[in-house]
């Protein structure tokens, strides 16, 4: 299949659709969700899908092969697009907490399952908390400023991860940028 000039969102929808057709349950996570929720204010080139069943790895690879992707190590690459696809093994979690609610977006008959905006913020904050990655903090802010976020959930989760000091940095910058 030709994928020239396909956007990250449309590619994610296409892959999500092909996975669903094969009965593979997968959820888009990571920076790709930031791209989708910020309309590419942050441009990711990685589509990280977490499989809900580890045994679906082969079926997921077959679905990509059908679209013309080739495996390169752990990633899948297509000659028409710079985007890389990777399938991660379960569990679908953010830090020590399982993801409870999965969001969907759709276009036509295609449906993509992805982290909710709140979980996307927590996912980016996890990278900031654990690896002190400032780019991830910026990405969390970009999403939080554009979508309703359950801040109570973010605070509870941050406390459970022992990260209240770094949460304070996020909240301070969030309030400043929101003014």
């Amino acid at each position: 299949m030709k994928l020239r000039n396909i956007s990250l969102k449309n590619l994610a929808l296409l892959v999500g659709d092909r996975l669903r057709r094969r009965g593979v349950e997968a959820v888009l996570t990571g920076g790709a969700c930031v791209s989708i929720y910020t309309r590419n204010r942050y441009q990711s080139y990685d589509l990280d899908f977490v499989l809900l069943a580890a045994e679906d790895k082969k079926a997921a690879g077959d679905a990509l092969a059908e679209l013309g992707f080739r495996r390169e190590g752990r990633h899948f690459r297509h000659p028409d697009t710079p985007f890389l696809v990777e399938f991660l093994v379960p569990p679908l979690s953010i830090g020590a907490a399982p993801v409870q609610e999965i969001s969907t977006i759709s276009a036509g008959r295609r449906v993509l399952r992805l982290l909710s905006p709140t979980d996307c913020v927590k996912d980016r904050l996890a990278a900031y908390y654990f690896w002190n990655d400032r780019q991830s903090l910026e990405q969390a802010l970009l999403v939080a400023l554009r979508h309703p976020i359950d801040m109570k959930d973010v605070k509870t989760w941050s406390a459970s991860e022992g990260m209240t000091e770094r949460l304070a940095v996020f909240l301070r910058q969030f309030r400043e940028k929101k003014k």
Partner: protein
Amino acid sequence: MLEGLLESPVKERALLFIHVAGPSYAREIARTFSLNLSSVQNQLLKLEAAGILYSRLRGRVRLFEFNPRYAFKAEFGRLLDKALEFVPEGERRLYQGRRRPRRTGKPL
């Protein structure tokens, strides 16, 4: 100790070594336990693919450590603590190699 669970003595030693010593590279684990280097590398890469470890390059060395984002990190750490209690005293010392710095040029 955990071979029945992990199905590989190399994997068990690598995990216990990183648990005790912190960020480690394949060659030092292989050297410490006289293991085949490629077996150690293979197990570390499997653990990375499973999200249990992550790695980063420091200079030309790839260091592996526990992934702080792994959902069961705390519980798995406690399991490894328990397993360490059963490691014979002589072998346990192998997990505790020197980690403090040594000044450049200082004779051993």
